[in-house]
């Protein structure tokens, strides 16, 4: 058994652009689900609107393709109505942070037993490259033609603060680590949030001098720093470069969770 057994092969190839990282994140999530040994009938994939949210359409299990930003609200309902189901949510940065931001912090606060995989491509890819809350400062998009000026939302730190039980961040280049993180999230009772930075060569890279897929992968590979290393650097009083993105496991704790079957 591999992760390919979870795909609806009649729907492939999918519509994602050449080099889009969303396919990689689906592979890693399905590999983790496969390692958990869950049955197809007991698993539900839920998504909102966006590139990332087309993912459940390519998976054999039951799925919900819901309104924009409301994936977590629907997922909470599914989990509380039938706590035996394993619920996984696919969402994007515009879906989760911009339009569904309130649902996100309250799902973290309630600590519902969900696993949320956020494919953060730092832009609204499907609608033509508008700036999202995760667009880096200085990046060019169709709504920020002179460079984004707003501070960036750090989704993982937000989930830690709001009370999620497990929070990790990896990129679509670190496939093995991402698979491990998703598996840890699936095993943790309570709300687990895995942020996967993905490349978007079509909407983001094309406008930001990262036109080739390899350029975006190299950008992610060179600009990440392990969170333990960042903490060591801060303890020693060294300056952490501004553009470095911390990756790794942010928190793992055991707050009382909602929706765990007795």
């Amino acid at each position, binding site marked *: 058994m*591999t*992760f*390919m057994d979870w*795909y609806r092969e009649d729907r*492939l*190839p*999918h519509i*994602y*652009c*050449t*080099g*889009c*990282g*969303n*396919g*990689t994140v689906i*592979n*890693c999530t399905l*590999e983790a689900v496969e390692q958990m040994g869950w049955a197809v009938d007991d698993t539900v994939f839920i998504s909102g609107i966006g590139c990332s949210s087309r993912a459940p359409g390519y998976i054999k299990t039951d799925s919900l393709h819901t309104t924009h930003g409301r994936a977590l609200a629907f997922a909470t309902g599914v989990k509380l109505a039938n706590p035996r189901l394993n619920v996984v949510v696919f969402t994007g940065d515009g879906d989760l942070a911009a339009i569904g931001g309130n649902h996100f912090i309250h799902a973290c606060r309630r600590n519902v037993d969900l696993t949320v995989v956020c494919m953060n491509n730092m832009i609204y890819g499907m609608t033509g490259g508008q700036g999202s809350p995760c667009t880096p400062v200085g990046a060019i998009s169709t709504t920020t033609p002179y460079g984004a000026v707003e501070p960036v939302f750090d989704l993982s730190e937000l989930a830690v603060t709001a009370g999620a039980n497990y929070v990790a961040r990896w990129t*679509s*280049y670190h*496939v*093995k680590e991402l*698979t491990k993180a998703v598996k840890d999230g699936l095993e943790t009772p309570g709300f687990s949030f895995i942020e996967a930075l993905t490349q978007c060569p079509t909407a983001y890279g094309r406008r930001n001098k990262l036109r080739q*897929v*390899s350029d975006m*992968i190299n950008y992610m590979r060179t600009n990440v720093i392990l969170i333990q290393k960042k903490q060591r650097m801060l303890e020693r009083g060294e300056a952490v470069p501004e553009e470095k993105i911390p990756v790794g496991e942010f928190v793992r704790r055991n707050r009382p969770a909602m929706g765990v079957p007795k």
Partner: protein
Amino acid sequence: MKLVIDESRCKGCNLCTMVCPYHIFQEGDRLNERGIIVPKLDRPERCPNCRLQKLYGRRLCGACALICPDQAIRWEEEKPYEKHKVVIEY
């Protein structure tokens, strides 16, 4: 086992060429019938999955199949006892 790239799914992003520790995937040089330059395989019998998957009973590395966004890389069963010349590099 045999390493195969499914040309009907590959979109030519060349992500596999960046992750393979053996550099088995090389950038291709000819268009296929869909107008896509599919990576070519350089001595795929060096892949640890091809050699050792049966022996260990599990997938060993698999980074290329995991990172492939189009699910185009897979391992196929071969006819039994096909002879391969394997050159091990140190």
